[in-house]
């Protein structure tokens, strides 16, 4: 326990990690909580005022203010983090908490959900929000003609009804205990009924003043914002800066206050720079090498296991991520997810075991596998492939690294080639992650894995409202993916951003970059 306290003081551990470690040791009761909050929130009280300038990558000249079209960071931070609100938001501990909804409850089968809305919330055009606006906004993503990025996640909603001005009832096709989480999705921002979403009128803390796609997004504080303890800045300015050197220079020369996506090679230099702070978030982002289980030779689980034992995850994190990340355990659930299976033993690099499984698969001497990769898959993917080749060679496995063009990688390589490198932003819930990428028939089941027990558990766990039962189901599912699944998951990558020391913030949410995309709403300038 002393050691844990020491780590926390040194800043090598954040509060969450401390709590997790303490829980693992079974000593939560001995934690003095006042001492804990004293250290973790040493910052002073937030202050109002100033213009926050964020130099941001992930902007494009094709961006739009309609949240249905949002695909990348600049619009995620602008629409979801500054202009608008959802029914529910995710707080710094990863829990769903009320935003536009005051409360919610579900039927015992988790099929019918009732959201009670906050009263007196005002849109930027002066209208007061009610249930019609919520229905209009969610329906924007539903239906056959929807081209929303959220189309698949709202598909399970069969009907939305209103019950008076301040209650909305969702009917689901099947029970889903995670509906509040789904409502936090960055597409599902609430706008006023019958108003075009491209006008940028929402309920958020800032009102759009000027928007030039991919270049600049500028907003002023909405004076009648319903949260009194949020949106501290007077003005928000997002500048689209796609070149990482340009972002770094702009931050160093004081032209911007915050930058996202620091260059891994330069982080140690930024840390040394005076007047700057580097912020690391260990979220859900991870990289995989996806093997198609429906294609020889990856149909054989011994082949999959051989390749899982032939990768040195520690070295991957050290070399490819330069230490800014954590090792993966061949399943997509991050340590920061709610039901992460910490009891599952960590798979380690073991050339002998790799040889053993390869022999069992009957491919002992002539094993060559082609790994398709490109920088478009994730930053460092080609290097990771080459490193993997060297590691696997020690187990007598030959990996042929095939470099593919960046343009069209997701159309022509991913889910087409038998084995390729993949980027995953991750999901805040186990159900979303597994349903999207590991369930039979999942839209992006890129390993084409079909495990009967897993698929059965997935449906059961989705509508299970009992936390303990639910946890044990998700742990079993992680074990199944770990032992039988088609993805080698070597690493979870941290999100790195940097800011001027003048910028203040609380504990950072890990569900997305820049404090869950909410930096404009949650941060402030220190006095």
């Amino acid at each position, binding site marked *: 326990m002393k050691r844990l306290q020491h780590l926390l003081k040194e800043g090598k551990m954040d509060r969450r990690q401390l709590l997790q470690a303490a829980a693992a040791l079974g000593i939560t009761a001995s934690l003095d909580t006042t001492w804990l909050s004293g250290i973790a929130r040493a910052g002073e009280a937030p202050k109002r005022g100033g213009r926050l300038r964020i*130099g941001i990558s992930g902007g*494009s*000249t*094709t*961006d*739009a203010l*309609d949240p249905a*079209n949002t*695909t990348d960071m600049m619009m995620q931070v602008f629409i979801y983090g500054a202009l608008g609100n959802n029914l529910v938001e995710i707080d710094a501990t990863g829990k769903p908490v009320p935003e536009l909804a005051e409360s919610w409850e579900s039927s015992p089968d988790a099929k019918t959900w009732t959201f009670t809305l906050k009263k007196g919330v005002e849109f930027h055009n002066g209208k007061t929000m009610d249930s019609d606006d919520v229905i209009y906004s969610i329906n924007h993503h539903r239906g*056959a*003609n*929807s*081209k*929303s*990025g959220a*189309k*698949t996640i709202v598909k399970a909603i069969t009907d939305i009804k209103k019950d008076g001005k301040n209650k909305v009832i969702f009917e689901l096709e099947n029970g889903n205990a995670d509906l509040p989480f789904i409502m936090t999705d960055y597409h599902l921002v609430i706008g006023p009924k019958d108003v075009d979403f*491209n006008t940028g009128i929402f309920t958020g803390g800032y009102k759009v003043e*000027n928007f*030039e*796609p*991919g*270049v*600049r997004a500028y907003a002023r504080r909405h004076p009648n914002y319903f949260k009194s303890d949020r949106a501290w800045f007077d003005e928000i300015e997002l*500048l*689209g*800066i*796609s*070149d990482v*050197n*340009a972002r770094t*220079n*702009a931050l*160093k*020369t004081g*032209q*911007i206050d915050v930058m996202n996506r620091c260059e891994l090679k330069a982080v140690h230099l930024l840390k040394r720079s005076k007047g700057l702070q580097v912020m690391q978030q260990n979220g859900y982002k991870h990289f995989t090498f996806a093997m198609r289980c429906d294609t020889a030779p990856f149909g054989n689980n011994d082949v999959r296991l051989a390749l899982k034992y032939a990768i040195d995850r520690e070295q991957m994190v050290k070399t490819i991520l330069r230490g800014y990340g954590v090792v993966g355990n061949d399943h997509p659930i991050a340590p920061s997810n709610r039901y992460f299976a910490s009891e599952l033993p960590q798979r380690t690099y073991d050339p002998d075991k790799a040889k053993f499984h390869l022999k069992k698969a009957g491919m002992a001497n002539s094993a060559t596998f082609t790994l398709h990769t490109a920088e478009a898959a994730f930053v460092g993917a080609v290097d990771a492939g080459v490193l993997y080749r060297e590691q696997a060679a020690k187990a007598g496995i030959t990996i042929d690294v095939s470099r593919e063009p960046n*343009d*069209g990688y*997701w*159309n*022509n390589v*991913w889910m087409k080639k038998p084995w390729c490198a993949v*980027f995953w932003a991750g999901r805040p819930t186990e159900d979303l992650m597994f349903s999207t990428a590991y369930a039979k028939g999942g*839209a*992006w089941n890129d390993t084409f894995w079909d495990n009967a027990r897993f698929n059965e558990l997935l449906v059961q766990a989705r509508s299970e409202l009992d936390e303990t039962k639910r946890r044990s189901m998700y742990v079993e599912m992680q074990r199944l993916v770990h032992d039988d699944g088609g993805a080698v998951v070597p690493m979870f990558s941290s999100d790195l951003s940097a800011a001027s020391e003048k910028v203040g913030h609380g504990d950072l949410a890990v569900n997305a970059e820049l404090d869950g995309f909410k930096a404009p709403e949650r941060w402030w300038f220190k006095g």
Partner: protein
Amino acid sequence: MQQWHFHPVVRLLAQRIGLGLLTLWVISLLIFVGIQLLPGDLADAVLGQSATPETVAAFRHELKLDLPPHIRYLHWLSGAVEGDFGRSLANQRPVAELIGWRFGNSLFLAGVTALIAVPLAVVLGLMAALYRNTLFDKLISTSTLSVISFPEFFVAYILIALFSVQLPFFPSIASITPDMGLGQKLYAVFLPCLTLALVVTAHMMRQTRAAIINILASAYIEMANLKGLKRMRIVVLHAFPNALSPVINVIALNLAYLVVGVVIVEVVFVYPGLGQLLVDSVAKRDIPVVQASGLIFATTYVLLNLLADILSILCNPRLRSPR
């Protein structure tokens, strides 16, 4: 016989403009065909990893990407002739609105650079010719040639490191907004202009020098020399006017490059010009924007070349009034 009434320059002009229009039409065809050859379309590109077959289909239908190509081409061309470039597929904004502001920015950057670079290059070229093979000539040649042989982004980063990080004189990103005054804008674009000026000066300067030296070898210059005229007078008044034609052509080429070819400098300095828009639009397969930018780039080239032709004719008495 009617045409004999036109001044030969006017006739030449009409001919050039006609040819220019023909070139533009061919280019419009090439742009269209080229875009058709790109793999994937906007629906795939915009939705990216989140594209499922049903969203893609809905998207394509709404954007009329499912119509045959020749119909889309005719539709586009007839619109473009009337000045209507359509709407961006990605965010539904009118293409003219998207491009207008950025094209203005590109012209501003190119204009300011040209104002610095063209006089500088011509004067340096004259001086180099005047003091040919002296230390001064060699110094200018070596320095300008070394700058031109560095990649643009390298020059840009060196300038940023010197004048923005080490000595905080100028901003490292040239973000300009429509509500900025001229002074603020000039200050903001100082470093990108300097970068571009360094890159284009060498070419123009070398051309000026070569053209003048070429002319200095002709008989009438020798005559002037024998008359005992001052060397400065010979170079500026006798040689330079005759060297103008090749110089003007090189200047036109460089100006065209400044308008259409400075994507890298735009990225490094985060300058909202047309180049970045074109790159983004190609990546996202936002066809109307790509077509319109392509056409604007082509028009810029054609226009500047036309201008260069006309100017060379006007400054050359033999071409001005042919017998």
